[in-house]
């Protein structure tokens, strides 16, 4: 168990370091610099700035300094918003993204799992067809379609919520509903597939033969195994939902992490862009680690082996 955990942790660390290095190299190669927009920077001042930020040193020394800063969790000040550190910016915007991402995750699971289970237990029935129609719609109406439509209907036409912005206490509802419905569609598909495959297995027949009730068969025996593919999906999905969806934050004009990344890239705010990338990577790695452990606990056959 411990060995499995450590090997996974190590692999996760490699991912995070790789992300930091690749972003660093990419931003180094990119044309332009954060000082481009400041006019009248004299040659002397540029030299001073370069010295201050270590930009006069060879690339590998810069990379090493860069990694050291991240090792101390202090990537430094933003290149764009003077006087703000990137840690402050992330700390300000991450809770905003999580405030609609977490309810979206709960909607996705709370809506998707029962729908998928219902469909799997009554294959070919009206319930099955209705649930799968919903799942198909979720796949065909991605956030860039569903988001504006929901904003138009519930925000502009009915006027129940603000169509955009982040001012009132109810502003999380529409973005959370949009994301929740889309992810619920995927969750329902995965639940249905996993449960139907599991219910056809021999140990389920044995459980039924022993006289276990239908509820016990489904929830005590089948569900543990059936939710493995779902868990695989939920790890990265949870990381993505909590850190905010780029499209949803643009549609509903929410000052979350996703919007910050897009604007950091556009503004050539290198410090903020690479710190955000590293933060995203850390979230994905963290959730994948949780999923790996939960999966191994649920299914003894997967076990805590290294590969």
């Amino acid at each position: 168990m411990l060995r499995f955990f450590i090997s996974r942790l190590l692999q996760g660390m490699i991912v995070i370091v790789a992300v930091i290095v690749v972003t660093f190299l990419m931003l180094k190669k990119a044309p332009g610099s954060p000082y481009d927009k400041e006019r009248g920077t004299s040659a002397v001042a540029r030299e001073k700035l370069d010295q201050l930020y270590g930009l006069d040193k060879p690339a590998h020394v810069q990379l090493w300094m860069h990694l050291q800063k991240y090792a101390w969790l202090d990537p430094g000040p933003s290149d764009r918003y003077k006087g703000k550190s990137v840690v402050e910016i992330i700390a300000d915007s991450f809770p905003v993204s999580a405030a609609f991402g977490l309810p979206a995750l709960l909607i996705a699971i709370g809506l998707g799992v029962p729908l998928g289970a219902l469909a799997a237990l009554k294959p070919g029935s009206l319930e099955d067809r209705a649930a799968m129609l919903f799942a198909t719609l979720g796949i065909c109406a991605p956030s860039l379609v569903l988001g504006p439509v929901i904003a138009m209907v519930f925000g502009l036409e009915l006027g129940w919520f603000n169509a955009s912005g982040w001012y009132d206490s109810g502003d999380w509802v529409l973005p959370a509903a949009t994301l929740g419905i889309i992810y619920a569609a995927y969750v329902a598909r995965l639940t249905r597939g996993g449960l139907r495959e599991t219910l056809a297995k021999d140990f389920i027949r044995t459980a039924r033969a022993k006289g276990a009730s239908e509820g016990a068969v489904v929830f005590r025996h089948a569900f543990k195994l059936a939710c493995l593919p779902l868990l695989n999906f939920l790890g990265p999905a949870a990381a993505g939902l909590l850190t905010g969806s780029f499209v949803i934050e643009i549609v509903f004009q929410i000052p979350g992490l996703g919007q910050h990344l897009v604007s950091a890239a556009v503004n050539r705010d290198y410090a903020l862009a690479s710190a955000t990338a590293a933060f995203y990577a850390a979230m994905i790695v963290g959730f994948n680690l949780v999923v790996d452990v939960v999966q191994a606990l649920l299914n003894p056959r997967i076990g805590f082996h290294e590969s």
Partner: protein
Amino acid sequence: MSAISETPWQGAWRRLISRPGSVVSLLFLAGLVVLCVAGPWFWPYSESVQDLERAASPPSWSHWLGTDPLGRDLAVRVLKGGQMSLLVGLVATLVAVVIGVSYGLVSGMAWRWLDAFMMRIVDILYAFPFMVFVILLTVMFERKLWLLFAAIGAVEWLTMARVIRGQVLALKKLEFITAARAYGATTGQILMKHLLPNVAGVIVIYASLTIPGVMLLEATLSFLGLGVQPPNASWGVLISEGAASMQAYPWLLIGPAVFFSATLLALNTLGDALRDALDPKSMTE
């Protein structure tokens, strides 16, 4: 029921067209491609001509999908945008398939340590926040179209590589590969002559499921203003423009959104049907 002399591909085709859903999807997609490629030539309006007297008019007999605030016919812009979206979908999928299949074949045939190493790289790349990288790439460098293809293709090959490698591992234990080896076939010959034809079905399945994913990624990037740049149009660009003015001119959002969603639906339906048709074992229904 089935003819004795039927090849596997003929059987797959028969199973495919026995489903009404996949026939409708096929016809829809074929019609869409013809309409998008040839349509703009015959259309009474051009996508760059402005008719300011009829600017921002709702759908009518003369402009089926209405016009935008600059007086451009929306229908012809949707067709032009469809050209771009379908082109990105096909080319980026091709990039993903070539990378994924080559990587999977090599990994599956290579020495065990190399295979383990290559698959570890795939594991690591799976955990990369790819949307972040694609955003950085498209912003940092000039927004060239080929870069968009390459960036999207480079993101979408991972699943393909895993699946192909799994197939190769299963196939290379079978007798006909041993026989080919005994006859003195080189690894390259085995790859090209014996393994590739046997994984062709899987490649078709995953390629067909990759196309809608790629088109969605392109639309998302264009929606964020990072993909196809105006005045060029793609469905993502049009949906983004429509979303920006949906309060005043809702038809600008509805037209392109309906086309985009219908195409995704058709592609997904066809992909699922292909999976069942090419791999009868997986058919649980």
